[in-house]
């Protein structure tokens, strides 16, 4: 079909990725390669306490014995873990005390990315923690949050200021031995965000972290930990971009969420790492472990993700539903184009009585991409009356791409109710014709239909992100369909 040939051709220009610039800024790096010395170097740089260094070293020793997982439906050349920098930071004399002290070059970078940190501090709305390569460079709205007892700061700062909290929760959801990439992260994580919402506090604004990979040949390993005490609520957003480079860069993050009684965490991601060019050259390898533990009664964790970037996505945000009546939700849109590969999904582990979960996953595959939904719903014997509903829909655009669904459903309690459905289809000629007939251009029509296809997911995003995500859906598929 002529329309579809255009797809591949137009996208080949790679113009769709507007975040591909590089910021020229002086960097400080750890020596290339990975060894115990690298781990010690990072820990020393961060002036970490002994227990954390020990923890890192245990992880590193374990990692050396582990093999890279091969079960995901992604293919990539072997990664040389010695041929990368594990720590890179913009050079500054001391940490900035306020935005005025932040390197103007950095502020300009974030402005260019559409995240004007200064402006955001003026306007009410979103508190932002900006992570540049390996370190957090700026956090806005800190003061206002502190007054309410909410901690929102860089992980490295939290280790210094709130060591007990960090020690109590770090690794309690994703242990250092969890999997190859999480273990690597545990050994070399450089920074990330720490959020702590005390009992009964409803965080009045969206908290947001903006991740940026800038330096070449550098991996990014951030670690995010969010703890919501009883009766609290927080909504957290994360965004990510990286420059266009011919090499592949590794991003292996770990996110841990903990909710206690009646607490709720809403975690939204718009992932737009550089996806590589039309021939699949360059792009980020995104191997991420995200997991939330609903420890308290009636607690809730909601994951929303819009995955449009990365050459390879390997990501399964999960919920461990321990607390009686706890709720886990997962909403995902994964868009792959050109030669991108995404293997993403979720795990819902029902342990407590009356736990419920809902999974809505939308996969859109275009060009020569492969998109896989891989998910697990497990009902443990004691999860009396547990409930799960899963819906996975895939949309294929063009005949060179693939869309796959690999759900695992395990139920060990008769009173549980588990439902799963999946469909695969393409944009129907009837839908297109209907829109064209009403005066829309083909491109507008496709964008409308695709946005409609993703609607259920996009509408769970906070408003600030929903607008960005909708545009992103359009951009990612630009030309591919119309």
């Amino acid at each position, binding site marked *: 079909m002529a329309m579809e040939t255009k797809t591949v051709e137009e996208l080949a220009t790679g113009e769709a990725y507007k975040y591909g610039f590089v910021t020229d800024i002086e960097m400080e790096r750890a020596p290339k390669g990975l060894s115990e010395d690298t781990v010690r170097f990072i820990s020393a740089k961060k002036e970490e306490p002994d227990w954390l260094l020990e923890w890192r070293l245990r992880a590193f020793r374990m990692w050396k014995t582990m093999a890279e997982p091969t*079960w995901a439906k992604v293919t990539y050349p072997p990664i040389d873990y010695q041929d990368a920098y594990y720590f890179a930071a913009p050079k500054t004399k001391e940490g900035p005390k306020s935005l005025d002290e932040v390197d103007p070059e950095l502020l300009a970078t974030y402005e260019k990315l559409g995240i004007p940190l200064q402006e955001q501090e003026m306007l009410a709305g979103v508190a932002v923690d900006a992570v540049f390569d390996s370190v957090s460079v700026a956090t806005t709205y800190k003061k206002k949050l502190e007054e309410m007892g909410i901690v929102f700061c860089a992980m490295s700062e939290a280790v210094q200021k709130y060591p007990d909290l960090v020690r109590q929760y770090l690794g309690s959801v994703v242990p250092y031995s969890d999997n190859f990439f999480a273990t690597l992260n545990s050994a070399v994580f450089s920074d990330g965000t720490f959020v702590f919402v005390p009992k009964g506090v409803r965080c009045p604004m969206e908290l947001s972290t903006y991740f940026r990979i800038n330096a070449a040949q550098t991996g990014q390993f951030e670690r995010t930990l969010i703890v919501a005490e009883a009766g609290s609520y927080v909504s957290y957003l994360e965004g990510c971009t990286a420059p266009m480079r011919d090499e592949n860069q590794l991003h292996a993050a770990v996110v841990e969420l903990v909710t206690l009684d009646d607490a709720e965490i809403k975690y939204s991601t718009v992932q737009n790492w550089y996806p590589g060019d039309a021939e699949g050259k360059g792009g980020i390898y995104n191997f991420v472990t995200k997991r939330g533990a609903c420890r308290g009664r009636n607690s809730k964790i909601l994951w929303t993700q819009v995955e449009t970037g990365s050459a390879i996505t390997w990501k399964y945000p999960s919920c461990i539903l321990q607390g009686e009546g706890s709720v886990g939700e997962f909403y995902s849109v994964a868009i792959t184009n050109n030669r991108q590969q995404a293997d993403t999904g979720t795990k819902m582990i029902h342990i407590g009585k009356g736990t419920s979960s809902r999974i809505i996953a939308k996969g859109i595959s275009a060009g020569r991409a492969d998109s896989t939904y891989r998910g697990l719903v497990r009902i443990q014997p004691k999860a009396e009356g547990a409930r799960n509903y899963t819906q996975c829909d895939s949309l294929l655009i063009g*005949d060179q791409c693939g869309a796959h*669904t690999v759900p695992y*459903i*395990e*139920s060990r309690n008769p009173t549980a109710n588990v439902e*799963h459905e*999946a469909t695969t289809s393409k944009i129907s000629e009837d839908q297109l014709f209907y829109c064209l007939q009403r005066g829309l251009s083909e491109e507008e029509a496709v964008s409308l239909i695709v946005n409609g296809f993703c609607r259920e997911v996009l509408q769970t995003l906070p408003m600030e992100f929903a607008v960005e995500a909708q545009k992103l859906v359009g951009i990612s598929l630009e030309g591919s369909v119309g």
Partner: protein
Amino acid sequence: MDAKTTDSAPFLDRLEAVDTDQPDWAAALRRAGLAVYREEGLPHAKVEAWKYTRLDGLTRSAFEPGISAPDGITVPDGRIADMAGAHRLVFVNGCYRAELSDDGLADEGIEIVNLGKPGAAPGWVAEHMGRVLDLDGMPLAALNAALWGDGVAIKLADGAQLQKPLHLIFLAAASTPAMFQSRHLLIAGRDSRAAVIESHLGLEGAPTFSNSVVEMILEEDAVLDHAKLVDETEHAYHIAATALSLAGQARYNGFVLTLGGRVVRNETRVRLAAAGAECCLAGAYVADGEAHVDNTVFIDHAGPGAASRVVFKGVIGDTARGVFQGKTLVRQYAQKTDGHQLHKALLLSSGAEVNAKPELEIYADDVKCGHGATAAQLDEDMVFYLLARGIPEAQARQLLTEAFLGDVVDEIASPEIAAAMSAALTRRLAGINADHGA
């Protein structure tokens, strides 16, 4: 072979029992099977395709080939699929027994050959045997290829019609642990039509291990109705692979009913090679006690415009476990594919478990594919509705369970087969509900 190989790949020593006087094709098949089985060994939990079905128990009994059945064994008519007027071929412990079977079929254009003596098999057996089932990743089918001892080959000439259903009856009865590996082949010529029923029955006795392979080739416009009933003993391992290849416009109506066995795995692999091929595969299972019932289905849409529909339902009680793994693969050139899959499980007790993995792998864009899976207990509202109408609880539950599985029986195209399967199911459910009711 070293000791390690014997541990991970047991039964290799049983090769000594295999007759060495064989034609080339049989020897080649054995060599191929042996190579794969040596390489892959008995599947363990880390092997994805066998993730939910463990075969560890197989090594706990000293299964031996060639164990003969007690004298005077007869076909227990009350337990087989009730197909009046069917032409029977009876196997006992994997070996064909002429004296229990009906005399040669006189239908025109139909050839039935016993495979006990491979040397005597006609050319078409040599040509097609082993051609449909790819042994890679199929270690148990590979073991069968290495060790198979008996079986039947059926050929329908172009346009031939089997007048009566063909009923293959497999009886297992042994006083010491016995293993049997039978292998069968069916070739349905262009525009031919046949109905084949398999009944696998375990009679009381020692543990048995049946590992069978059936290969079926349906040429253009051929129509095959195929049903399989598995009612083995609570000590029996029943592992079966059925592989089919369908040419253009061919139609396969399959049904698999599992009512008994310790570990049962029915693996069906269907290749829809050309336009208009159609596969309708349904199944039901009732698992109680410690039974483990696995239905694994792989549908390969290798040609455009083919359709597949897979529906399985199971009732699981006590500490039994049900497994459903269904995969639909749509290759890049298989445009206009219509592929659907459904699995529903009813859990009757707190120790029961179900594991489902319905999978789609799709490389063509103009397709309609979907799958659904559910797991739940009986709807208490429905039970209450019946109670409110004066129906005793045990009966209400039986009615609802029967209705739940009854849907699948409705998928069967042939009314005679549907009636036979329905009768077998009702017989079985009367038993399970007596235990679980109330």
